[in-house]
């Protein structure tokens, strides 16, 4: 892919050459490792003769949810200035006079800004393998949790890059990106859970239950918890619904962003292209 997208190679060079990248990866790994050992120690209560898989599962779920929350909130920090930053550094106009398509530019930005986050997820695999040794999770759960994390990172990065293209300024794109993540994690979580709780108090009110379920299906932490086996439900189907919903939003933002990058693409009518002098006058 890098051979086909020069922007991706350039972004990797720039991002990975700084000291920030290894420091972020090392700091994240050390924090997660400490937390894992702390959780494991707390779960086995200092003795290693009797291992309880149920307690190990708690560790697996906690780690998964924490990692999801961290990477979802970190992604906009790397992606929200992807295109607006180019505009502010005054490199965008030259980039736009090259024959690179808007798809190539946006894809290069999405993959390069999510690459570090993907790396963060991958470096924690050995920690999950420790939990795995305790018999706390089956391989399908591990694959599901990791796959969902990776897809969520790419989705959040794509939406942030699109906001960055549409908002013109990095400040605004950061606000919009974090508003998106806040909706995904906090608003859907709080309102979804609240409505479901209210539905237990008023069992005949399907409206509350349906809306509660609808909102929770849009929450990455809820889906993640389901995929890790912490809450009952049809989470393979729910994760598809989640990806479909945010995927559709991403497609809409992507089309608008492409138009922002290449306004010629949207000059459909001949009148717009060649103009009508009478209209102008």
């Amino acid at each position, binding site marked *: 892919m890098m051979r086909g997208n020069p922007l991706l190679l*350039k972004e990797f060079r720039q991002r990975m050459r700084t000291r920030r990248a290894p420091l972020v990866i090392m700091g994240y790994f050390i924090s997660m490792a400490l937390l894992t050992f702390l959780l494991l120690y707390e779960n086995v209560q200092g003795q290693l003769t009797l291992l309880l898989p149920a307690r190990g599962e708690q560790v697996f779920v906690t780690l998964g949810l924490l990692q999801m929350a961290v990477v979802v909130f970190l992604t906009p920090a790397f992606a929200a200035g992807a295109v607006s930053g180019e505009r502010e550094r*005054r490199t965008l*106009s030259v980039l736009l*006079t090259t024959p690179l398509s808007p798809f190539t530019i946006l894809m290069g930005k999405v993959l390069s800004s999510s690459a570090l986050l993907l790396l963060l997820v991958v470096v924690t695999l050995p920690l999950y393998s420790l939990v795995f040794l305790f018999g706390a999770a089956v391989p399908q759960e591990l694959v599901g949790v990791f796959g969902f994390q990776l897809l969520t990172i790419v989705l959040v990065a794509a939406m942030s890059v699109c906001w960055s293209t549409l908002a013109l300024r990095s400040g605004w794109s950061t606000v919009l990106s974090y508003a998106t993540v806040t909706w995904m994690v906090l608003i859907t979580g709080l309102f979804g859970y609240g409505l479901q709780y209210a539905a237990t108090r008023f069992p005949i009110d399907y409206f509350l239950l349906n809306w509660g379920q609808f909102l929770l299906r849009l929450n990455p932490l809820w889906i993640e918890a389901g995929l890790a086996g912490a809450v009952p439900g049809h989470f393979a189907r729910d994760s598809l619904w989640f990806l479909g919903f945010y995927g559709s939003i991403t497609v809409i933002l992507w089309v608008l962003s492409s138009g922002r990058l*290449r306004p010629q693409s949207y000059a459909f009518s001949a009148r717009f292209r*060649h*103009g009508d002098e009478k209209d102008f006058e």
Partner: protein
Amino acid sequence: MIQTQNLTKKYGRTVAVNRLNLTVRQGTVFGLIGENGAGKTTTLSMLATLTVPTFGRAFVNGFEVCKHPHDVRMSIGYMPDAFGVYDDLTVTEYLYFYAECYGIKGALARRRSVDLLEWVNLQNQRKTYVNALSRGMQQRLELARCLMHDPQVLILDEPASGLDPRSRIELRRVLRRLRELGKTMIISSHILNELSEVSDEIGMMRGGELSAVAAVDALLDQTGAYRRLWIQAAAEPESWHRVLANVPQVLEYALRPQGVEMVFSGLEEEQAELLKRLIQSGIAVTHFGEQPTDIESLFLRLTERGVLPHDAG
């Protein structure tokens, strides 16, 4: 070549470029001058496919900018007035990146970058980070970047802005060499003197319109004939008027506290004759001399008087 037909760009109620008709012949250099806000950058931005015209057409290298933007992009090298560079990339990596954007890879990209860096005198900075280069060096690197895909047309927006005198001279040298290579170029500036050395034709933009176009050779031919004179002498205004009103070579003059400033259309012999007449009429001249010709005001004067072709629009 570059051609525009009634090219217009409107932002709300503001008309940035108004019915621009411009032709830049193949292999020639067209200098576009005008004050800030005259519409130069918008014009170049439309030619570079960055801005969609409100109406009218523009053709670059035979491709219409709205219909075939991809072909236009393959044909042009564009240098914006205010450009930035990517941090954490070396000079060579910077050029490779843009080469790859145009599908140029491997040995060809390497050869071009070596040749171009030598050409813009940056061969010793190959491994230097781009953000560590001086402004003048970055400007020359940008020119090399524009040339990586060997475009037919170069669109340069204020290439000399923000440069020190030494860098300006170096840039002019590079532009002259590009002209010798037969590249079609359109260069904007708000300083005419800067363009007259490298351009074949000069066009002046005012309020979004092309107000005048002139060939540089014709303009320079006139600089000898139109001179600015400064005569220092203590005399009554009537004395000045009596003499100067009867000298046909004096095109215009302005009285100053210590003398008179004038535009004189004549040769050295006629200047000597003027000095003789001033002395004969009792004006005690303490200084009589020529001032450097302001090519910009000359350009305006000549086009307004119809001395030079005024074929804009």
